[in-house]
């Protein structure tokens, strides 16, 4: 009755707020039920949370850049969705069987390897210029130059020289033979015909590279798509590369929007401004789970476990943490299964070692530490930390068992987990002071300078990636090595060093598996860090999109964009 009266007043031309409000409500109601505009899906809009600042594939490796370059650039080799090494720009992986890999003896007595690759005959830059060994030579020249700001200089140090056989075939001479000797995924070609002038002054290359000054130049890209528009800080538009000879790109246009706020990312998804959120650079798992509950029926949501290992580093320079019993007690005092269940809906696997279950080197035959607060308290008693009436623990000399726990400020998932850790450890008498820092401070200062007690963060790796940087004693960051290395806990075990050194040169699969198992058992016994879980990425996709398969490794799904399609 009330509505009828208002409607009548409106019809009579009566003005007023009520009339306006009534019309607005009607409008919203009607609009909510309007059928969505029919789309032919020849365009795809993707949301990611970071804007890739500059697209040169060899300067500053960041995830957002890798994702965009997955559409536009073909590396020689990558690990595919089955975590198998495959050729993308080359015709065949070198092996000793096919004669493309040859062991060599170096003057210093070490064993090296010569690897011969052939560039695909149809590989062409986006301006029609064929990809040739001239690009290989140029890329090597840039990589070897100490002024060129190339991030992975280690790769170019390992390549002693390059021999060119013809326009398409070349040989790389490596100074060592490793088990994944054929993998040269970081050797990403630069177009010599365009980039050579920018490299005239190597020290200025990072500022003059066309990827920064002329990013829409089609000749910079050799993948199925090329960058046709780049609005710095906003979006990147990709259009099919007319000279691409592989399978037809599925979309007339792909737009990648950078939306850093995850709530805004979600709103953009619901408004249709973007069609999907890339798992590699998208919603944190807890927010993806909440989104799934509310709108899961409207989207395809894929949870893909990956190689990101979430853990708590124990600084072994802290006397209390140097005692293995204390570290074991800390792990036993955590109900990791409950954390994963309640906070992440069991979408992430509890970690018992640092190797992901999908990795070839994984073994489950390691010590497990299920939640056992009674045993944890027993261990702390044995370590000389005695329970006090106020619930804390003290040593004989009156010191309280208390640690500072640090993680990245603003990372909602970690901050949630951190509170649970604090609560559970308090129950076994360990006091925790939370001191979080922005990522730039934590990773730029606190962790490399070993100024923490307990630090929660993640390591990302490649399949079968030897843990040299995180566990080898030569990788402990210190002032005299310029704080290089990632062994910030200060783990120093000659047995682990031996396993890592052997692993890097062992080619026999069975022996490698045994070595990997040894490393995991040693880790799970020594517990230099406390394993929490392996992180999963959440891919939010439109129902009409097919063929997107997350890899779970460091190679983005965008590398296989030609497998994507629109469901009929």
């Amino acid at each position, binding site marked *: 009755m009330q509505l009828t009266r208002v409607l009548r007043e409106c019809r009579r031309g009566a003005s007023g707020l009520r009339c306006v409000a009534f019309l607005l409500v009607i409008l*919203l109601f009607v*609009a909510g039920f309007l059928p969505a*505009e029919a789309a032919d899906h020849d*365009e795809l809009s993707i949301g990611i949370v970071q804007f890739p*600042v*500059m697209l040169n594939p060899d*300067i*500053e*490796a960041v995830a957002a850049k890798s994702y965009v370059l997955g559409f536009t650039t073909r590396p020689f080799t990558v690990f595919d969705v089955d975590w198998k090494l495959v050729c993308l720009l080359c015709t065949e992986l070198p092996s000793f069987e096919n004669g493309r890999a040859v062991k060599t003896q170096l003057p210093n007595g070490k064993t090296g390897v010569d690897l011969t690759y052939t560039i695909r005959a149809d590989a062409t830059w986006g301006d029609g210029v064929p990809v040739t060994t001239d690009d290989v030579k140029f890329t090597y020249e840039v990589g070897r130059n100490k*002024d060129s*700001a190339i*991030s*992975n*200089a*280690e*790769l170019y140090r390992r390549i002693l020289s390059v021999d060119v056989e013809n326009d398409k075939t070349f040989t790389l001479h490596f100074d060592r033979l490793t088990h994944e000797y054929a993998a040269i995924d970081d050797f990403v070609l630069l177009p010599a015909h365009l980039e050579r002038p920018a490299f005239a002054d190597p*020290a200025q290359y*990072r*500022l003059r*590279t066309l990827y*920064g*000054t002329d990013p829409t130049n089609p000749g910079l890209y050799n993948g199925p798509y090329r960058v046709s528009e780049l*609005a*710095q*800080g*906003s*979006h990147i*538009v990709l259009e099919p590369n007319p000279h691409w000879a592989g399978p037809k790109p599925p979309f007339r*246009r792909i*737009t990648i*929007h950078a939306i*850093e*706020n995850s*709530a*805004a990312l979600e*709103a*953009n998804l*619901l*408004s*249709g*401004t973007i069609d999907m959120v890339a798992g590699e650079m998208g919603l944190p798992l807890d927010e993806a789970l909440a989104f799934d509950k509310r709108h899961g029926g409207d989207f395809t949501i894929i949870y893909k476990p990956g190689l990101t290992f979430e853990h708590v580093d124990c600084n072994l320079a802290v006397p209390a943490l140097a005692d293995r019993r204390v570290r074991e007690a800390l792990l036993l005092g955590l109900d990791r299964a409950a954390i994963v269940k309640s906070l992440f809906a069991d979408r992430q696997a509890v970690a018992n070692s640092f190797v992901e279950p999908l990795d070839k080197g994984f073994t489950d035959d390691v010590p497990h530490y299920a939640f056992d607060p009674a045993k944890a308290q027993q261990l702390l008693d044995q370590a000389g930390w005695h329970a006090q009436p106020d619930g804390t623990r003290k040593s004989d000399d009156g010191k309280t068992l208390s640690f500072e726990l640090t993680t990245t400020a603003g990372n909602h998932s970690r901050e949630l987990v951190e509170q649970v850790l604090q609560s559970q450890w308090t129950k076994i008498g360990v006091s925790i002071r939370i001191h979080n820092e*922005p990522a*730039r*401070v934590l*990773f*730029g*200062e*606190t*962790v*490399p300078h070993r100024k923490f007690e307990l630090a929660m963060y993640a390591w990302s790796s490649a399949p079968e990636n030897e843990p*040299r*940087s*995180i566990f080898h004693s030569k*990788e402990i960051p210190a002032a005299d*090595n*310029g*704080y*290089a*290395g*990632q062994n910030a806990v200060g783990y120093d075990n000659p047995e682990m060093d031996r396993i890592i050194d052997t692993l890097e040169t062992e080619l026999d699969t069975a022996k490698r598996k045994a070595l990997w198992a040894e490393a995991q058992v040693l880790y799970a016994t020594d517990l230099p860090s406390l394993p929490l879980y392996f992180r999963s990425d959440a891919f939010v996709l439109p129902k009409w999109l097919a063929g997107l398969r997350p890899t779970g490794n460091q190679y983005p799904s965008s590398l296989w964009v030609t497998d994507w399609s629109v469901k009929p």
Partner: protein
Amino acid sequence: MIRFTAIRLIEIAAMLVLMSFVIYGLIGLMPGDPIDLMMAADPHLTSADLARLKALYGVDQPLLTRYWAWATAALHGNLGYSRLFAAPVTATLLPRLANSLVLMGSSFVLAFVLSLGLGIAAARRPRSRFDAAVNFGAFAGVSLPTFWLALILILVFAQVLHWFPASGMTGAGSGDLADRLRHLVLPVATLTIASIGGYTRYVRAAMRDALGQDHIRTARAKGASETRVIWHHALRGAMVPIATILALSFGTLVSGALVTEEMFAYPGMGKLIFDAVMGNDYNLALAALLLATAVTLAANLAADLAYAWLDPRVTLR
């Protein structure tokens, strides 16, 4: 007035020199070196790489040496290169500045015009229903968190009604004026709603004060029309405190609106400054922050000059 202006300009120049040193020093004192961060992300980097990259990016020199090199180059018109964007600072800064001026300028003008109307109307009818409604609206506008307001606008006008795009500055492959205007509507509305409350409160208070002055009563007694009383006599007096508020707001025109820019993925100065500071991009952060400082100082000078024009009793010395 010329002497006053000249002295103030000298003071502004001195302040900018001082601020450039303070800003440079503060960024330099922030923990977390950019090259150390690169190292943390890439296990292949060795200490030799670290030294090489630090020398290449110039962060191996003492802070004072770096500042002196920057200041010398800046005096010759060279603001240097942005490390984060691998481009000259001016080339990085100017497009973002233009974006921010469009966004912030539109909302500033809109908010000011609306608040002038609402504030004057409310001041003319104190303690009326309209005055109460304006006060309520003003407090609501001031109290609403910007990110929440932005989300609600996206939800209603982008998600439900599909009237406006939820993010960005232009559509992909588009970018004509109509497209740009469509993309501007929601962020401008957010900023306008967020700032209109504060301005309205100032305008209302200043007008209430001005309307109680003796010369207003005299004007009315002399038979001046209400329109003339309001717009000619009262508003001029009320504009003195309002000019101060406006001058202080001018700095935001070039320093951007971080939250709104982030919510609408709008590439403006707020996000640029944030990224530059967090990424230890000295040249870029310094140029952007100095620009904001210079505009704020210049606007304050303009406000001081405006006082003398608005109020004949004020003398500039």
